[in-house]
């Protein structure tokens, strides 16, 4: 076994011999791209990267002049206005960077960029794969920045955060601020509280005690009026909507106890509870923040979509080709689209023919052959031919935007399940308020002087610490566990909804299958050539094609051989000259009649010498998943856009209950809507753009990591590693979480229920209430922590 490439750690192809000096030894590299990058990194004194990186770098593609021209187009003011606001001399931009794998990458990128003149600030975020860059516009150009990143092997794209994410970021920051205040102040208040505890036993000067109370009051005030404010706001918002939510008892306890303690401080009577309410606020905020942060992380890492549409287009004007901003295209413009580029608007092909990858529309990987007068759609990818397209739809009217519109419409009609938290809260708050009122009225009859204090004691003793920690701690631990296993939860309701799911619907291509063709078997048809030669020629021919089928051949043989006079014939195959032989690979019956049932044939001198059968490989663990679903009596459905029989075959193979083939995005949507109208709770698993509308119709949606960005963005759950086993784990954890939440609720209600009558009778001293409160909270937290190890 040879050593792997020094830069990307991939195997080095046989016969490729390029090395670089590092650490007084010669290190081998796998390609010229990697060599150029490694050279740039080492020459510029950034070799620490290789010492401290924890993940390998990706394989690097060589920079071609074509790309440099594309980079230049980013300097165009029209195009920049798509992703940047005009901000005077200093420009600020977020770049989404491909290939960041560990902290060493972040360091490398920062060093590389700070070398450029005019860069003011670089901040690379390794968890979101983004870099924030500030630079002086008149000193350095954006294209130079992007090019300098390309030199060390990172591809960067301008990127704009959407409104929703921006808001979440602000919320996260305000959480951190409130937490900071609560934490710092609680420590101080606690310190004085301890002094007073000891004072209770050993006696304390009246003056000192009064002084400490005032100091505690001053220190606790920002915690209550600033850190705990969101609870009050949410409780009031709930009341306005005529709902009693969990924040209401929390606010009642915090603000009630604060009011009582302040009263006690100012008029020098009664007890103070500043330390308890500060601690309570801090713990509650901490739980909420941790859960929020896990979800923020999930949505950040999936929202990194490059725009679905390219920013630029090649406009043909007579014989000239100019690169313009794609949004400036108007009806009737003629544009050129080269192989590998994304089509910027809907249109008719005027000249040329090609195959187009419409997977993001239809979910089907098989490229569609297109020739003159065929329609092509914005957002689809041109594979192997150069075409000129006359634009007939732009902007809002393109098919892509119609799908997005469908998706947004479904969002507003999304079915929701009432959350268990709110139900418990309603019940609890109502009981608590009734009980407190009875206590107040009762004691007013017996002993008016103590009525107020005993009522407050009831409120404090029943302070639903444990109750309000019961759900957030369990959710936080469950989300942390799932994140570790590669299941990202983006919406809070997921874990509550999942145990109620009655139906699970799958997309086929890309979800149950890997979404890329592989060779499932092949056969030699002619004994003149040996296996090795056949595979070598087949692979070498396919390296000239951009077609997705070509990828299936890359693993066939470790080397390639140079071919002459290569011609890619769109929709048919590839032919070339190899030595003195005419070789070709492609469709059956090309030039000569073929026998057998293969989908691809290799021809040498016009004779078919080998046949290959290709198919989309099924993902592992489908059977386990379907079995698990059956065991929990969940119905399985397969909804595929593919009109062929392969969906039915797959379903009967794995015993999937119901199948519907040839579905459009709207078909899938109405199928799921019909199910939910029958009071079924539906989970949808998918990957493509065509699945994003149905995601919003289902109660829970799960997207594959390999899927289209837009579907990952819409989905509630993203399965990293695209492992179907993750779904089983998700269901297990969701059920477990439900159980743990139940236990937590029971425990805390037991505590609150038993202390309530005692407090109402005026038998509970404040320190007893505090111990009971802390103990019940700790038990609940410990119980939730079990989820981490599940």
């Amino acid at each position, binding site marked *: 076994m040879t050593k792997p490439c020094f830069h990307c750690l991939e195997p080095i192809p046989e016969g490729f011999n390029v090395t670089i000096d590092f650490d007084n030894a010669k290190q081998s590299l796998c390609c010229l791209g990697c060599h150029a990058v490694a050279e740039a990194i080492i020459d510029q004194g950034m070799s*620490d990267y290789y010492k401290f990186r924890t993940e390998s770098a990706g394989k690097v593609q060589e920079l071609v002049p074509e790309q440099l021209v594309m980079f230049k187009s980013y300097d165009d003011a029209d195009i920049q206005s798509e992703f940047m606001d005009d901000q005077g001399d200093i420009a600020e931009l977020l770049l989404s960077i491909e290939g960041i794998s560990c902290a060493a990458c972040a*360091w490398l990128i920062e060093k590389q960029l700070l070398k450029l003149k005019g860069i003011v600030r670089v901040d690379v975020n390794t968890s979101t794969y983004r870099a924030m860059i500030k630079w002086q516009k008149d000193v350095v150009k954006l294209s130079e920045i992007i090019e300098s990143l390309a030199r060390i092997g990172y591809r960067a794209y301008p990127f704009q955060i959407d409104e929703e994410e921006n808001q979440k970021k602000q919320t996260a920051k305000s959480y951190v*601020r409130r937490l*900071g205040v609560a934490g*710092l102040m609680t420590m101080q208040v606690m310190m004085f509280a301890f002094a007073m505890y000891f004072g209770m036993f050993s006696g304390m000067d009246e003056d000192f005690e009064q*002084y400490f109370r005032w100091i505690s009051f001053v220190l606790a005030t920002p915690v209550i009026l600033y850190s705990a404010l969101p609870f009050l706001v949410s409780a009031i918002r709930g009341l306005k909507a005529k709902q009693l939510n969990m924040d209401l008892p929390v606010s009642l306890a915090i603000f009630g106890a604060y009011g009582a303690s302040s009263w006690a401080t100012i008029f020098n009577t009664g007890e103070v509870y500043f330390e308890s309410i500060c601690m309570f606020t801090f713990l509650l905020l901490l739980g909420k923040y941790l859960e929020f942060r896990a979800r923020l992380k999930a949505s950040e890492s999936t929202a990194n979509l490059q725009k679905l549409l390219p920013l630029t287009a090649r406009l043909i004007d007579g014989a000239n080709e100019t690169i313009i901003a794609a949004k400036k295209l108007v009806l009737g413009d003629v544009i050129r689209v080269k192989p590998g580029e994304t089509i910027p608007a809907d249109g008719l092909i005027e000249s040329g023919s090609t195959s187009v990858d419409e997977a993001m529309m239809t979910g089907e990987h098989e490229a569609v052959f297109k020739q003159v007068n065929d329609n092509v759609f914005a957002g689809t990818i041109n594979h192997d031919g150069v075409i000129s397209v006359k634009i007939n739809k732009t902007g809002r009217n393109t098919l892509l935007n119609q799908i997005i519109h469908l998706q947004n419409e479904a969002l507003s009609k999304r079915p929701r399940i009432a959350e268990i938290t709110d139900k418990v809260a309603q019940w609890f708050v109502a009981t608590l308020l009734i009980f407190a009122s009875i206590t107040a009225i009762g004691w007013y009859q017996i002993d008016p002087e103590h009525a107020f204090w005993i009522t407050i004691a009831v409120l404090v003793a029943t302070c639903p610490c444990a109750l309000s920690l019961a759900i957030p701690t369990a959710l936080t631990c469950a989300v942390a566990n799932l994140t570790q296993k590669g299941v990202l939860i983006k919406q809070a309701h997921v874990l509550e909804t999942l145990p109620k799911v009655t139906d699970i619907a799958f997309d086929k291509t890309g979800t149950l299958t890997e979404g890329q063709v592989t060779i499932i078997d092949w056969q030699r048809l002619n004994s003149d050539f040996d296996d090795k030669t056949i595979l070598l020629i087949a692979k070498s021919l396919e390296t000239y094609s951009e077609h997705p089928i070509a990828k299936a051949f890359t693993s066939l043989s470790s080397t390639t051989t140079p071919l002459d006079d290569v011609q890619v014939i769109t929709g048919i195959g590839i032919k070339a000259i190899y030595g003195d032989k005419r070789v070709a690979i492609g469709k059956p019956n090309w030039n000569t009649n073929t026998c057998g049932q293969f989908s691809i044939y290799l021809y040498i001198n016009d004779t078919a010498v080998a046949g290959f059968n290709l198919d989309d490989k099924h993902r592992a663990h489908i059977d386990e998943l379907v079995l698990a679903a059956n065991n929990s009596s969940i119905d399985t459905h397969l909804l595929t856009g593919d009109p062929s029989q392969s969906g039915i075959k797959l379903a009967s193979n794995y015993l999937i209950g119901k199948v519907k083939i040839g579905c459009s995005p709207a078909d899938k949507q109405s199928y799921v809507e019909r199910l939910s109208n029958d009071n079924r709770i539906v989970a949808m698993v998918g990957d493509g753009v065509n699945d994003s509308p149905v995601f919003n119709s289902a109660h829970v949606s799960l997207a594959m990591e390999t899927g289209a960005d837009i579907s990952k963005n819409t989905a509630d759950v993203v399965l990293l590693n695209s492992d179907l086993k993750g779904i089983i784990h998700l269901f297990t954890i969701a059920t477990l979480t439900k159980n743990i939440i139940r236990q937590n609720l029971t425990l805390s209600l037991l505590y609150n229920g038993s202390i309530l009558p005692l407090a109402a009778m005026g038998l509970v001293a404040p320190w007893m209430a505090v111990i009971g409160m802390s103990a019940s909270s700790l038990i609940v937290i410990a119980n939730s922590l079990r989820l981490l190890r599940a």
Partner: protein
Amino acid sequence: MSIIYILIPIAVLLVIIAIWVFFWAVKSEQFNNLDKQAHSILFEDDKEQHDKSNDH
């Protein structure tokens, strides 16, 4: 003991300063990406200088 009438307000003042610094740190996004900071100590800011000093 009457010294605490002065010392405690000073302590409170220090806490207020600490909170002000904390708010500034949040505002300048220092809490955004905590993983990276943990690794930054491993990397040398100025490789060439370091190499030179090693040569002597």
